[in-house]
């Protein structure tokens, strides 16, 4: 279970390193809004907290890790039942 959590967390961390420098489709959409209106668009509200790129990578990895833990628990419990039956 723990291995799955670590594995998924690490995968998300490594995958996010591969896309650094690429523009997210959300950011590109913001560019389209500006080009449609002819002036730079500013949202009417800003987030209270903005993680920097390293913090963002870690938090996405944490998200994947939490999901991985749950998936690992499911895989473990199924394999455990199979082994017990055998």
């Amino acid at each position, binding site marked *: 279970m723990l291995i799955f959590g670590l594995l998924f967390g690490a995968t*998300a961390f490594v995958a996010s390193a591969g896309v650094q420098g*690429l523009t997210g*489709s959300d950011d590109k959409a913001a560019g389209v809004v500006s080009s449609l209106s002819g002036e730079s668009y500013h949202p009417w*509200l800003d987030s209270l907290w903005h993680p920097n790129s390293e913090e963002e990578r870690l938090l*996405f990895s944490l998200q994947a890790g939490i*999901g991985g833990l749950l998936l690992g628990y499911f895989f473990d419990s199924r394999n455990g039942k199979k082994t017990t039956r055998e």
Partner: protein
Amino acid sequence: MEGFLPHPWWEIWFALSLPVVAYGVHVMGKLVKARRETLPLLAVSGAFVFVLSSLKLPSVSGSCSHPTGTGLGSILFGPGITSVLTIIVLVYQALFLAHGGLTTLGANVFSMGIAGPLVGYVAYKGATKAGLNLYFAVFMAAALADLATYVVTALQLALAFPAATGVLTSFKAFMAIFAVTQIPLAIVEGAVTSLMFKYILHSRSDVLVKLNVVSLKAVQKLREVSV
């Protein structure tokens, strides 16, 4: 992005999404009480959204995006329950990652948690009724749920930011970004969801039959093929 959708659009999407999420909470509560054995699959469906939507993947157009992971939940439990699973992920991303946002939560829940899963659910039911291969049906449902999410996002943005020549021009402009980026990711998502579904089918086919996801006949047929 926080504060990205102007008034009245962010309120409209909240008004459309909240009843569906409330219905999803109601159905989920009833399901867990009546069929306790579905709880692990609910957790797996939520975990699947958690994992896949955390992955930022590169795409063909030199940009990157996220898969949604909602296809599995929509196949197993339908769009109502999937909207509940999705809102949990979206709140986490809005609060801790400044990704999405609380004011855009209604719009994001509608595209990722309701419209995408609804398309996936209809695609799965249609494909299985038409007698298509079960794993292909899952692949198609998950890929279409992913694509539909971004088509609806493009529509939401086009409605909020219409071009001088009309909503259709904006929609085309937003689709040019999302469709090109998302098609390869949707294919990957479809394949990963099929593999996950295969594992669940082999380990908990009894629950899938009870949930009317597959028929007993289809499970027996698959067992005969694999023997």
